[in-house]
């Protein structure tokens, strides 16, 4: 009962949020200078040509009218037509979404693996040089933004020691047998490890650049929580049973420390997804973020709107997933 009411109220807030995002984006991109029509026509086009195109894309009406038209179309699943590519926004956006999802999830996995390992090591060797070293690494990870990490990685793994691909999502020479845009996932399912290796080689640097700041946050928060938990009574009791320090950290402390860390990681993960915009551009990775920048440059209003709404939906889903994981991991909520 309680759960149902929570779900409903959550759904309502989500819809209101999405509506708000739609309104704001719609207004902002029409108020800022820049004319999509001017971008489409050759220099010296006549006033009549401009007016004709404006009418075609509905840009001659007031912002309010434009919004009503756009919104009622959206409710019917029609996000309009991209001005620059003349293709339906929805299919453009959905085509690129898998690339960004795979990149973000890979970055999240890397961040959790790196941050988690550092947190456990730092706790295991607390008060020693290892922990001090990890604290320094966390500080560096936190103070350098993802795009600078991207540049540093390009220098390191692209120029000085060129072992990874710098640009794109997959090598153009490869024949792709895929039916979906989830290349990495599908290559795994089809056991095409040659393609998978190529995809990973492309994904490694952008994913790592996105992962490092989050890894530092996870490492710092989780270590803080672990160091508290390893001194709690049940951890001490486990030691008297004969368990090693490492075992105490992993099986007594970690399950209890993940929970407080999780909520913050969820918020940070949405920032990570936001970071894909610049990182994808930097590595010419063909995802949503890269398309978003093109759309802004071309003043492709319907496409910008579509992308922003999709990002907003994505963020909402991430938050929902975090809350559900939280409830699932917490025995007290599970039985409430």
């Amino acid at each position, binding site marked *: 009962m309680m759960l149902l009411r929570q779900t409903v109220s959550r759904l309502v807030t989500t819809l209101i949020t999405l509506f708000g995002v739609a309104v704001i984006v719609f207004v902002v991109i029409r108020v800022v200078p820049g004319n999509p029509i001017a971008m489409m026509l050759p220099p010296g086009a006549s006033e009549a040509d401009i007016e004709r195109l404006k009418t075609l894309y509905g840009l001659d009406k007031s912002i309010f009218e434009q919004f009503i038209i756009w919104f009622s179309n959206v409710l019917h699943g029609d996000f309009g037509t991209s001005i620059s590519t003349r293709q339906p926004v929805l299919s453009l956006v959905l085509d690129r979404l898998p690339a960004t999802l795979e990149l973000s999830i890979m970055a999240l996995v890397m961040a959790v693996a790196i941050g988690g390992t550092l947190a456990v090591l730092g706790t295991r060797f607390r*008060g020693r040089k290892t922990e001090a070293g990890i604290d320094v690494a966390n500080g560096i990870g936190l103070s350098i933004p993802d795009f600078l990490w991207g540049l540093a990685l390009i220098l390191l793994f692209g120029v000085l020691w060129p072992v990874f691909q710098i640009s794109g999502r997959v090598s153009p020479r490869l024949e792709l047998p895929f039916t979906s845009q989830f290349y990495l996932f599908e290559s795994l399912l089809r056991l095409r490890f040659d393609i998978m290796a190529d995809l990973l080689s492309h994904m490694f640097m952008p994913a790592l650049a996105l992962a490092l700041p989050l890894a530092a946050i996870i490492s710092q928060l989780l270590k803080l929580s672990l160091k508290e938990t390893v*001194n*709690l*009574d*049940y951890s*001490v*009791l*486990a*030691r*008297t*049973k*004969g*368990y*090693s320090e490492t*075992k105490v950290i992993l099986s*007594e402390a970690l*399950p*209890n420390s993940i929970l407080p860390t999780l909520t913050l990681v969820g918020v940070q993960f949405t920032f990570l997804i936001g970071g894909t915009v610049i990182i994808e551009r930097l590595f010419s990775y063909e995802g949503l973020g890269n398309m978003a920048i093109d759309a802004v440059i071309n003043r492709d209003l319907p496409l910008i709107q579509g992308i922003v709404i999709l990002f907003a939906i994505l963020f909402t889903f991430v938050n929902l997933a975090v809350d559900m994981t939280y409830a699932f*991991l917490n*025995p*007290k909520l599970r*039985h409430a």
Partner: protein
Amino acid sequence: MSGFLEIRGLSARLAGTGQRLLRSVDISLPAGCVRGLVGESGAGKSMIGKAVLGVLPKAVEIIEGEILLDGQDLQKVSPAERRRLIGAKAALIPQDPLTALNPSRRIGPQITDRLVDILGWTKARATTRALEVLAEVSIPEPERIMRLYPHELSGGMRQRILIASAFAAEPKLIVADEPTTALDVTVQKQILKLISELQARHGTALLFVTHDLGVVSKVCDTLSVLYAGKVVEDTTVERFFAAPQHGYSSALLAATPRHTDPSSSLKPVPHEVLETVAAEIAASDAAWRPNGGARG
């Protein structure tokens, strides 16, 4: 005479400040006997229990002395071997049942984990044993309880479970650190009785940390009175209650309300007594040299 647990000349201090926490502590506990550790807050009672179980805080270092468990010096074996020895031969009944069970693990595994992981039993045997000890501490429906999480149980139930868990591996020594102070007064007596019964039935040596002399008179055979990390009196329970030898012991006894004399009220330990003990400790500290002969 050599007990199952022998602590000889154990001194410990805080690593940072060098503050002495234990001063040449000697404690002997034969198999199957119960020794009380009494003294006021901060005297070092828990510290001794932690030293025996190998869980001293990182900030505390042992300067000298030996802790022999079943004849083996815990200071002389590798850390891994020490953990295994302690896990196999000793167990802890903790003070606060609300914090001593891991909230994210089910009850069952928290009882069987030592049996399986440390003692190498099969899962089936460990589960049978867990059900057995849970029945022994009067837990109803042990199969169901084993599947629950700690927050689904009352404090008294949890302490019973912790007691069962401590006895599950048939340890020869149990350290109980104020096992009833965190509980409701109504269940304190039952839990005390339960520990006492199990101890007698299993012939376990019990190191019982408490500041309640009334509890000592019911549960213990011998006791060590601690002040500022020093054993000021080591005696049997009969002798202690009949005629305490040390001034501090007498004062402690006088400070405890007697059940026989309801009119007596709680009195603080007199100032002169404390000054005398402090002077004694200062004198023995002055005469003490690390690894030297002189011991207070």
